[in-house]
């Protein structure tokens, strides 16, 4: 039942298309051709992208990486945080619990922010999809401009938050398990 409900919007749109077919056949045809074309274009690239996504999820040793992101992890910590975010899948709010784990394992605050940014904008499977939809030029240009930016913003957020506040946040997550 739940599964059908998730397709409700799709069904509604199919109905709209049918109505448009009846109202103005040329319009209906136009919509059907456009839909068919984008399905062919988009659906074809998805299987390999999702297989890569699954492999990343299984093979990237998240726990080990998180243990190496402490206050003295420096450039290596930043690089690992970017990698951790880029190897991910899923929307940003899925990254929050991972970031909490980072906080518990005493990761540097800047690394946590950098990880969040990397997760939101440098995810590898999504970059592949972006390249297939919008082309390599745009994808690589966007990634190249984002990379220094997210490092800079991560460090800046870190420096802008006073130490006691960071300590308080960490303590909060140490004690509260189910936020």
């Amino acid at each position, binding site marked *: 039942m739940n599964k059908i409900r998730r397709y409700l919007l799709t069904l509604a749109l199919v109905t709209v298309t049918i109505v448009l077919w009846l109202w103005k056949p040329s319009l209906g045809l136009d919509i059907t051709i*456009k839909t068919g074309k984008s399905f062919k274009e988009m659906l074809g690239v998805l299987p390999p992208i999702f297989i890569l996504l699954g492999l990343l999820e299984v093979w990237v040793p998240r726990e080990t990486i998180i243990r190496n992101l402490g206050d003295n992890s420096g450039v290596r910590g930043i690089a690992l945080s970017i990698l951790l975010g880029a190897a991910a899948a899923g929307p940003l709010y899925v990254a929050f619990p991972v970031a909490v784990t980072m906080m518990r394992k005493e990761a540097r605050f800047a690394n946590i922010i950098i990880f969040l940014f990397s997760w939101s904008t440098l995810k590898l499977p999504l970059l592949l999809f972006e390249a297939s*939809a919008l082309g390599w030029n745009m994808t690589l240009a966007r990634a190249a401009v984002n990379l220094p930016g997210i490092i800079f913003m991560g460090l800046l957020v870190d420096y802008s938050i006073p130490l006691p506040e960071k300590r308080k946040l960490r303590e909060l997550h140490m004690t509260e398990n189910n936020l």
Partner: protein
Amino acid sequence: MFTVFLYTIAAGFLFLSFIKSREKTKKALMVARKAFLNILPEFSAILILIAVVLSLVSPQIIQHLIGGQSGASGMLITSIIGSITLIPGFIAFPLAKSLLDNGAGVTQIVVFISTLMMVGFVTAPLEIKYFGKRQTLLRNGMAFVYSFIVALIVGGIVK
């Protein structure tokens, strides 16, 4: 061409993974399947929705609102839409492509993509709960401003 490349890479890594661990490979495929089925409803809906909307709305209107000539006002529109909506990337890129094909400007679309990915208005309460108000405001505020910088640079490179 690119699709062939993707399939080759995926098959190669899948093979390597299978040699190293059958168990993990099976798990990876299950993760892949679940993630795919997860986006499929929205994915199919957005593809039809794009087709319907683009058949009714003329490219001139899109061009007028968020075309390359729309400048700052177009960027403002796409940045606000990108910040407040919660659209998964796999849904956003087909949308971005259709808009680009129908007269939207590169700069305006990159602002949309960047804010969509980095700025989370809907997820802000959750972010505050996890990281506090100051972090959330700073992170999202900077991301919003930076999205414009990214767009201006990318828009300058990609014509």
